[in-house]
């Protein structure tokens, strides 16, 4: 059911929400359409870090990126009664203000949608094979972004 894409192109939040809603409705054989009551989206956006950053370069492991996101999505679907799920992760050069990642979750009630979206983001941060390199305002490379300890800790809370 999960719609997973790894792409360099930008995405359209509204179009993905509409697709999740249409897909959920189409899948609702027993109760008729319209059993989605809650849709949560998370959009990760490139910050400029106080003017220091002009771009992030996102490298990924083609093939494994899609497969690892699919594994995390399948785990989310096992844990919560989702009626729709979409994850889009971009790669390539991304400038401040531009989108990096989108997660859309849909469920009958809000708690499942919120928790699943939060879970997906925590796992994507620490398991999806993407790496960010900084391009700085002074023209140099700021090197590779180091993982945040908070991200590892955020993931362990779902164990």
């Amino acid at each position, binding site marked *: 059911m999960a719609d997973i894409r790894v792409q360099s192109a930008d995405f359209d939040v509204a179009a993905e929400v509409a697709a999740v809603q249409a897909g959920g409705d189409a899948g609702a054989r027993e109760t008729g359409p319209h059993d989605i009551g809650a849709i949560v989206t998370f959009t*990760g956006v490139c910050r400029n870090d106080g003017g220091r950053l002009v771009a992030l370069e*996102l*490298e*990924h*492991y083609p*093939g*494994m990126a899609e*497969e*690892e996101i699919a594994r995390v999505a399948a785990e989310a679907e096992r844990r919560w009664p989702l009626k729709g799920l979409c994850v889009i*992760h971009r790669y390539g050069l991304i400038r401040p203000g531009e989108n*990096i*990642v989108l997660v859309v979750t849909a469920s009958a009630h809000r708690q499942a949608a919120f928790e699943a979206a939060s879970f997906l*983001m925590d796992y*994507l*941060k*620490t*398991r*999806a*094979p*993407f*790496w*960010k*390199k900084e391009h700085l305002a002074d023209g140099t490379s700021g*090197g*590779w*972004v*180091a*993982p945040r300890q908070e*991200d590892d800790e955020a993931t362990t809370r779902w164990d």
Partner: protein
Amino acid sequence: MKIVYFAWVRERVGKTEEIVTPPDDVRTVAELAGWLKGRGEEYAHAFAEPDIVRAAIDRRHVKPDAPIAGAGEIAFFPPMTGG
């Protein structure tokens, strides 16, 4: 045996992939990393802190003690910073 590298591991090794033939006593991911580390300065730099470098076998995360026998593609990379 096909090895692929990503991010600063790739930059330090200086290549995106290569075919290597480790000796028979190299059985695990950790042993493979240790053997690669001895292949030259660039590898020594890439694997200087072996606990930091992560690995995947056939596009699945694995632990350092994972056996490499039968692996189609082994990847080495830094901790992920996606999302």
